[in-house]
């Protein structure tokens, strides 16, 4: 067990390094010299040379990479070119907003997806199953940025029930857990929860339908176990896979929130990312992507560490 967890922890190191390398390489993918993008066209040669040294562009690429990783490991992601503030602070502010959004989206999406999946799996092959499956296919097919727009049209423009964008009075700094602020999170959270709901419903449905056909379930029923205890057995068997899917979906939700955050002008990491792209703020772009990708790696690790507690079979391998 401990060996398994240690091995899994050790495996993260090369992945994290490789992810950092990809983020670092992003700068060199661009068609323009990263320095030229920020410098005024009439910059003097001295200024160019000075900035080159400041940003470390005068060193060979591997040295630059090593320095960048070293600093990133110590929490220094450089300064944003656009605002001049440390990238770390920008990300810290934005990620708390994205977490608020993700919290609502996940609580809503996961509970709904699991409930739908269980019902559809239990009534496998009936009309209930077909309705849920139909909704799930619709959920994964809908461009969520469009769904967000349609919901704004319905609930903000026509019905005027909920705000169309932003995070409420005072912006992200004054976020509070009251209705005045939660109002703002409802539409973006529902929009963001559609894909996880649909995928989780599909997964749980397939799991439950499969588990119910297994022999041990027939045996449990045959020996006279009541429905509630049979249900417990089904939950125990479905849990490890469902947990893995939830972990991945949470990561996708955090990393993929850029589209929904753009629709609702939600000041989270996705919004930060689009600002970084359009102002060609490369340190900010690199830093945000590195942070989100590493968080995704961390989530996968967390799922792998929790799983053996739920599924003893993994412990033995």
């Amino acid at each position, binding site marked *: 067990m401990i060996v398994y967890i240690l091995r899994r922890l050790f495996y993260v190191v090369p992945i994290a390094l490789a992810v950092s390398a990809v983020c670092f390489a992003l700068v060199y*993918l661009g*068609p323009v010299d990263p320095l030229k993008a920020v410098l005024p066209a009439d910059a003097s040669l001295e200024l160019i040379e000075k900035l080159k040294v400041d940003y470390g562009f005068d060193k060979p690429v591997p040295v630059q990479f090593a320095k960048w990783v070293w600093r990133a490991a110590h929490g220094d992601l450089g300064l944003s070119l656009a605002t001049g503030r440390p990238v770390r602070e920008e990300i810290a502010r934005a990620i708390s907003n994205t977490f608020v959004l993700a919290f609502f989206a996940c609580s809503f999406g996961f509970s709904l997806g699991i409930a739908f999946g269980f019902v559809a799996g239990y009534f496998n092959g009936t009309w209930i199953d077909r309705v849920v499956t139909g909704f799930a*296919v619709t959920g994964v097919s809908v461009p969520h*940025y469009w769904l967000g727009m*349609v919901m704004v*049209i319905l609930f903000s423009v026509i019905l005027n029930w909920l705000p169309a964008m932003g995070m409420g009075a005072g912006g992200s700094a004054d976020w509070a857990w009251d209705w005045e602020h939660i109002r703002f999170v409802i539409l973006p959270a529902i929009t963001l929860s559609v894909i996880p709901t649909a995928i989780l419903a599909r997964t749980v449905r397939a799991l439950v339908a499969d588990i119910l056909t297994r022999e041990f379930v027939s045996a449990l029923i045959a020996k006279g176990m009541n429905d509630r205890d049979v249900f417990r057995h089904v939950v125990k068997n479905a849990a490890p896979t469902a947990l893995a899917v939830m972990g991945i979906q949470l990561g996708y939700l955090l*990393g993929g929130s*850029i589209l929904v955050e753009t629709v609702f002008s939600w000041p989270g990491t996705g919004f930060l990312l689009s600002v970084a792209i359009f102002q060609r703020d490369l340190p900010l772009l690199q830093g945000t992507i590195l942070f989100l990708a590493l968080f*995704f790696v961390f989530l996968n690790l967390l799922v792998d560490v929790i799983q053996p507690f739920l599924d003893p079979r993994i412990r033995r391998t």
Partner: protein
Amino acid sequence: MSSSLSSTLVSAAPSARGYWTSVAVKLTRDKVALVCGSIIAALILMAIFAPWIAPEDPLKSSILNRLKPIGTPGHLLGTDELGRDMLSRLIFGARLSLLMGITPVLCALAIGSLLGVVAGFVGGPTNTAIMRTIDVFYAFPSVLLAVAISGALGAGIVNAIVSLTIVFIPPIARVAESVTTQVRGLDYVEAARASGAGSLTIIRVHILGNVMGPVFVYATGLLSVCMILAAGLSFLGLGTKPPLPEWGLMLNTLRTAIFQNPWVAALPGFMIFLVSFCCNLMADGLRSAMDVHR
């Protein structure tokens, strides 16, 4: 008696035909897949013949006719924020949207299955090198990876296609690799090698014959994701540039109009949804038709 005999004959018949014929027969019996396939075929035809179908020039703007509602005489689906005919723009938009939604999957299908087959067939350090590199890309959520690469490359149709291709290569390569590794150890591959077949012949006849089915089904499933992501990149301003008609970009530029004319603004998104929905159902149909165990 005769009816039961004929029914056994009918059910036995497909096994006498080739695999692909039986898949085709199963598909033609699947009404949902047929309808979805026809909708997509119709949209592709619409895209090809756009200049003949569209009632107006999709780029012709008119300040006087801005944001007309759906059903305006002369503008069946209204006009956009620059007074351009929505119907014509939606028809022309199919060209770029479908191109950007389908090309990445095709490219990733070619590159991904090549990488997967090579990794699976050669094995050893080559396999490790290819598959571990691919693992790195799995460490990124797909939307983030697409946005990161096309954001770094800069806005543009080709850049968006390149970044989406990179996003879809890893999953396809994984499927191809796992099937190749399974098939490589089978007896008939050994037999073929023993009877003097070269590696290329074995790959062409035995490996590809087994790999292409699952990979193709998997790739059809990716089409809907790719449509949504491609239009999403344009929506963010990372794909096509104005004034070109493309559904994702149209959705973005019409966003400012949702207070004046909400339903016209939502139209391009519906087109993306329609294509993605049909692709998903078609992929489901194809998957069950190609599943020999049913």
